[in-house]
């Protein structure tokens, strides 16, 4: 059974337009009607909001960041954090896998000897240059210790200088994840 599908070959100039459409005027009026309807509709909603009525209906699709934020997907790659062991020390063993895989070369680790021979190695310093980071998430994928994650949902980490964009181990360890309830749900921030 062959299904016949009409494939439009090419938009032809003026094809299939009626006379009135070709004069443009009624179509222009239709367009204006549509936008004007949105205008007055939203105007009414906003006036109701000013009067404290019908507030559960949002008058605009806009999210008023940073007063409001959407919940992000749990798979979103956001600011890095280093996870901790039960005693608060970093889980990282300075194996350099993330530094090696990093396509932006933005991770700088210096390893040192740990007093506990069962841990052996720990990161003396662990810096991420967020100005260089491309947020590919390879470091998270490659980590054998689950020591680095990108699940903080923090996206606002801008700084005024390049130096401030380099996050050291203390900042990375103390990044508390910030989570919203549901994906796409808007909530007020306080």
């Amino acid at each position, binding site marked *: 059974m062959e299904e016949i599908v009409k494939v439009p070959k090419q938009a032809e100039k003026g094809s299939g337009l009626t006379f009135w459409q070709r004069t443009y*005027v009624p179509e*222009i009026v239709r*367009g*204006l009607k*549509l*936008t*004007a309807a*949105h*205008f007055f509709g*939203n*105007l009414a909603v*906003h006036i109701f909001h000013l009067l404290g009525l019908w507030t559960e209906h949002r*008058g*605009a*699709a*806009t999210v*008023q960041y940073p007063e409001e934020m959407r919940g992000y997907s749990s798979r979103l790659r956001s600011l890095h954090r280093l996870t901790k062991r039960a005693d608060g020390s970093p889980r990282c063993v300075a194996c350099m896998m993330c530094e090696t895989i990093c396509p932006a070369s933005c991770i700088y680790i210096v390893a040192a000897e740990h007093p506990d021979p069962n841990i052996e190695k720990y990161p003396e310093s662990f810096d991420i240059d967020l100005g260089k980071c491309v947020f590919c998430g390879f470091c998270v994928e490659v980590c054998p210790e689950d020591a680095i994650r990108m699940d903080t949902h923090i996206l606002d980490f801008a700084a005024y200088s390049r130096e401030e964009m380099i996050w050291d181990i203390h900042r990375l360890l103390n990044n508390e994840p910030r989570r919203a309830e549901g994906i796409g749900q808007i909530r007020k921030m306080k």
Partner: protein
Amino acid sequence: MMEGLAVAAGKVAFSLFVLLNFVMLLTWAERKQSALMQDRIGANRASIFGFTWLGLFHPLADALKMVSKEDFVPAGANRGLHAVAPFVALFFALISFAAIPFGDQLWIGRHPVNLQVIDLNIGLLYVFAAMSMGVYGFVLAGWASNNNFSLLGGLRAASQMISYEITIGAAVIGLVMVFGTINLQTIVHRQGELLLGFLPAWGVFYQPLGFLLFVTAAMAETKRAPFDLPEGESEIIGYFLEYSGIKFGMFLMTDFVETVVVAGLVATLFFGGWQFPYLYRDGFHLPGGGILVLSQQVVCVIQVLTFLSKLAFFCWLSLLVRWTFPRFRYDQLIRLGWQMMLPLSILNVVVTGGVLLLLHR
């Protein structure tokens, strides 16, 4: 003599006050209106002591920003013309508003004051002349910037002006033939009459085609979307590419001033200017026969408010059009001007002339 000067200064001040405030509000309205049309909220961040007032402080913030920004002149630019160009553009846009009447005569004591900055019997020609002078500012800006893209923008502005100026003139000829004058105040007076006993004798009823042609061409004259080819700030970039700070702001203002002027012109020519239906110098005369007597001053205030309301409405319409339709392609723009609108406007003149000839016989 002194009284006359004071009165003239008052009228100029009032007219500028109205015009510039409209401009300021338009920058706000453009954002807010487009936001509402697109289910957004629009600018609402500028605040003074925590009050945002629906974003009404944004024009202030813009002005501050523009004044304080670096005034950059590119290397190799003609510094003098580069500086003069925005003034030329803005000046002619501002003075073209002078001939538009915003009310009937107001009696202060025994002195009648014509509510119009300059009462010219060639008012319409004056407005057209002043508006078309503005294009020199744009062409100068494009040329003086020493930038090929600016120059192209300036040239687009010039050719667009030429294409639509003729249609504007030709579209109004029909109206002039109907009213028999080009004095704007007289045209407004003539529109105070009634057609068929109940319909205000507004130009739009005499000249519906002329109205359409005029509105379209006038929008092209203001260089706003869908006719914003000389500017096209985000993609094709225009004559003010090399402008920054308050000079750039002046070009922006010119746009809005022209919007207001065109709105005033449309109101004056086709919608009875300051005329409120059934309102005469002594009060309302309803078609059924009811009479409401009002003092001359009250009537005057109503007239001025009527004019301002019409002005506001046509500004709103202009914004609505600007945020509804996409930009023309350049060949479409020129073809529309020369092949559609000009022949139509000439046809309009011929038909009007024929009808008038028939009626007068």
